[in-house]
């Protein structure tokens, strides 16, 4: 999938999501609930390539999801 679109989406989620709880976990829950496994995988690869483009929370959320996918 177009990784730029995914990037835009995750940044938007990061800016907007305001549920209670640790931000990384909140973002991870959202992606788990609504994104396909492939989308999560693609964005993780992008984050590994260009971590500076993403906030700490997004990075932490994706690491969490990546860990789950491997498990």
């Amino acid at each position: 999938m177009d990784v730029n679109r995914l990037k835009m989406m995750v940044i938007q989620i990061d800016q907007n999501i305001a549920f209670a709880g640790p931000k990384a976990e909140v973002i991870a829950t959202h992606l788990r609930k609504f994104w396909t496994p492939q989308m999560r995988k693609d964005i993780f690869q992008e984050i590994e390539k260009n971590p500076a483009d993403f906030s700490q929370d997004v990075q932490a959320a994706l690491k969490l999801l990546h860990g789950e996918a491997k498990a």
Partner: protein
Amino acid sequence: MTLLSDPRGVAPIRDGIGEPDYGTPKSTSDVIVSVTIDGATVQVPAGTSIMRAAGENGCAIPKLCATDSLEPFGSCRMCLVEVDGRKGTPASCTTPVEDGMVVRTQTPKLGKLRRNVMELYISDHPLECLTCAANGDCELQDMAGVVGLRDVRYGYEGENHLGAEKDQSNPYFDFDSSKCIVCNRCVRACDQIQGTLALTIEGRGFNSKVSPGGLNFLSSECVSCGACVQACPTGTLEEKSVIELGMPTRTVQTTCAYCGVGCTFNAELRGDELIRMVPAKTGGANEGHSCVKGRFAFGYASHKDRVLEPMIREKITDEWTKVSWDEAISYAANKFKAIQAKYGDNSIGGVTSSRCTNEEIFTVQKMIRTAFGNNNVDTCARVCHSPTGFGLSSTFGTSAGTQDFKSVNKSDVILLIGANPTDAHPVFGSRMKRRLRQGAKLIVVDPRKLDLVESAHIKAQHHLQLQPGTNVAIINALAHVIVTEGLVDQEFINERCDTEAFARWMKFIALPENSPEVVQSQSGVPAQELREAARLFATGGNGAIYYGLGVTEHSQGSTMVMGMANLAMATGNIGREGVGVNPLRGQNNVQGSCDMGSFPHELSGYRHVSDDAVREQFETLWDVKLLPDPGMRIPNMLDNALSGEFRGMFVHGEDIAQSDPNTKHVMAALEAMDLVVVQDLFINETANFAHVFLPGTSFLEKDGTFTNAERRINRVRPVMAPKNGKQEWQIISELATAMGYPMHYDNAAQIMDEIASITPTFANVSFELLDRVGSLQWPVNAAAPAGTPIMHVDGFVRGKGLFIETPFVPTEERANRKFPLLLTTGRILSQYNVGAQTRRTANSIWHHEDVLELHESDAQMRGIKDGQKISISSRIGETTMRAKITDRVPAGVVYTTFHYPVSGANVITTEYSDWATNCPEYKVTAVEIRPADSSADADNSLDDVLMKV
């Protein structure tokens, strides 16, 4: 003169056709009184008219000016009765019963009085009953029979109205004033039911006559709702179809397939020919009212453009080949399977349609989850109300509006945000107007000055005319005032809401960044106006929020829905009549398509695919393994099509090439796919990219249910056999079977039984129950066997109501030097969505092209004149429209509708979308406009359009 008359009494007028008419509205009083009518003692609610009490108890009193959809008027004097202990002969329609009252409705004296009245009416009425279109459906004719009029002593020699001219300007009904008895029913219907006040009685006494104002009906304020036609007791106002084709002889009750109001209609037929659609008084959503679309614009169902045979083609550049159903289905199935074999299970998917029945939608998503073996199913609700589902389920625990439509009758303050009900949800709009005329207060939040901001007898207390894209800032500012001025309903919050979440939210909302003074600079709405509106909402009594796509179709659509839920909870406006948070759904079955499991992450009843227990139930029922992860949404499918991973799509009754944003991108994605299967009535824009076309059924042929915006499940009954030869659920079952997953139903009722067996909110729903009770609002289960008109009465579905912080994040789509104006979009009354249906009806007479509304200063600055062709460009694309200079929009904002493909509003909308659901940001696009050069002239003249009807 000797009269022709129908002696069969008052109502129903013809056997099996028409509903009983008790003359005056039902009383809602709980107090019961006893009254003796013609010797029989009956019990009725206090406030019931003598006429209604008599009629309900089998003793119909003659009447002309009364009908039970209108307040009594007492002008015709046909309904006179005698009451013991009272002088004279009071009119039974205007006289309420009293306890112990003794009434006589039939005496020689009354008979004579009635005959005299009737004689006068008839002496100025053409005696053409045999050839009159209303023959058999005329109350004047009926009453002449009922009162036993045999002769008329007065001839036509004196002054009369028999030569009065006919007004045939309206495309759907005629006005033949020579037949008018000036009973005022039409005028009152337009005032009381529709709320347009288009008609008046001009002149006095003998010279009085009904006038639509202006030249004729077409040029008047009339919105062609048909209420006056229905109310007219004579052939004066008559449907053209009845005049041309004759009186219907049988009725099938069904549901309108246009908007989310879900009006119930009696389809009246003569043999197999549909003559007219008459709104049903028993309709839960509409209670006898309609709008021009449902009432008259059904001609598209038999339009010559309809495709009735399946077609296939190898490449989209090839001509279509007509094939048999078997051939089309096996062609599609083999191709889908071949794609999966080559590119993997995940390479295909489908889209369900909010225009189709619950049963059809359920089978499509089932086919995708079983035969396709993935969760790549999405719905066109993605592009309209997906944020409603997200926002309301996060805060309240359920993905639906909280109230029934009737609830608005008890509202004291209505907060209307990003919705234009008089155009987009007209029958609910009329209901709302009625309440506003009774004195309810109105706050409108909209960049555009809607009719409701100021129209006949209605004036909004506050119009918060915000910059497009600043909804969240506004809702936060309203909440800020309520919190900082101590106007919250603490008792409600303590009892009903998660108090920790409330405390967090309160801290957030009280921040200075949410104050009206700061928000003024972002939104353009004066701080003082915001403060006053907030105070009014918090202190004005029952506060109800109604909203539309102007809320959801934004990058913060979901945040805004949560913001409105916060506001309703903070002010205690949830869980009773008159309050609530109410989405006005666009298409007829948006609610249903979401309920039926059309989203890639949810099974029916909004249960996440990752829930093992839920999945297991479906797996056992369907005998198949389901995937626990969400599938692709429409934009993901399209993006993946461009990158080559997604290669085949089943598009069910939706025109994504026209309705989805950034048309160029959608078309490129469709073009990139190996197989696009479209099931629809017409070759729409999407079908131009299709390899298989499966003809669909119109709502007149469907058998199933629609669920409206108030969660009301209405029956859709086949008025005629499917013109394409098959029900759509049948076609889908055959496709699933051909792909290797056996799917079979004998009828649509079986599908609903399956839905009920697996969906807790539908547990008790069946066609049998619906046919018995009319309609049901879900949840319908053991706890609520009669349905649930109002939700969250004793507690929220999720337990405690959850306040969620809603930070305002401005959209990336901003006006700039190159594109200095903000375009926002909406709908007009006479057209519907992308116009595929309404453009194929005479409705085009009212709206034959989309125009761009702009403010005078913006026009002047660019040398644009009213009516001139202009070009509108965004960073995505360019289109052409005619300019309409108006003060409805402020400087800097332009507005258009999107009903014509030629104007292609979505050619210019962008890829931005709601952060949570990817609902496209249709409501904000930065654009520039300039006078068009003649080569870009995309003309859509009225003549051209009407030629196609």
